[in-house]
């Protein structure tokens, strides 16, 4: 018995009696799949919200603190009386 024959024999063994598909399957699948979709959508929205909040918080902080302005020196005394 060569390889294709053996494979065909195994295929015949496996064909057997096909199981009945339960009638409630479709409703169950759509319910579960819909729940997964809704959960994903909520997670995505939450992430965007968090990102927006972070951007706003950073902007407000930057406008208040002006981190790009060089701070006045604290070690050298001011040069006066020239």
């Amino acid at each position, binding site marked *: *018995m060569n*390889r294709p024959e*053996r*494979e065909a*024999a*195994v*295929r015949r*063994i*496996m064909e*057997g*009696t*096909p*199981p*009945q*598909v*339960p009638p409630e*399957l*479709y409703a*169950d*699948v*759509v319910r*579960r*799949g*819909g729940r*997964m*979709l809704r959960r*994903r959508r909520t997670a995505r929205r939450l992430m965007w919200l968090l990102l927006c909040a972070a951007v706003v918080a950073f902007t407000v902080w930057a406008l208040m603190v002006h981190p790009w302005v060089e701070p006045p020196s604290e070690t050298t005394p001011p040069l006066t009386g020239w």
Partner: protein
Amino acid sequence: MVRERQVSQGARRAREFDAFVAGAAGRLLHAATLLTAEAPDDNPRARRLLTLSLAHTYACWDRLRGEDPYDRARQYLASRFARGAWHQYGGLGRARPHPDSPLGALAPQERLIVVLRLYEGVAEEQAAALLGLPTERVRTICERATARLLHPPRSAAPKVAGAKVAPS
């Protein structure tokens, strides 16, 4: 108008998915029942696997972009079974193969490879990539499982009897 378009898109999507399930569920359920080695009329684990993989396909239906949904569902089914078989390998007796199952004599991984390669006709390279195994290993396992199915070893019968006695 946007809402209307969304509704019609949803209806079309539901129709397409309904047609897909009607066409694919029988074959996928048969494959799942072969994988879990349950009887055709009592297959709760296979049904659960099928429901999960079809729900996964439903959830990524809009992002398939021309990919075959059947392929996607089968892939998810196989990887889910591989993960489950790893966790409950031989555990608690509920994973024990049913005597009516044609693949009951094989280990879970052998069943997975035989079903993918011979029942579903997935190419060796694809099956190997899906399971994260080298191609030669897939070929070896498939040939060994085929030989075991066609010429069952004689020592199998007493071993099964012993396993049945043990839990009582």
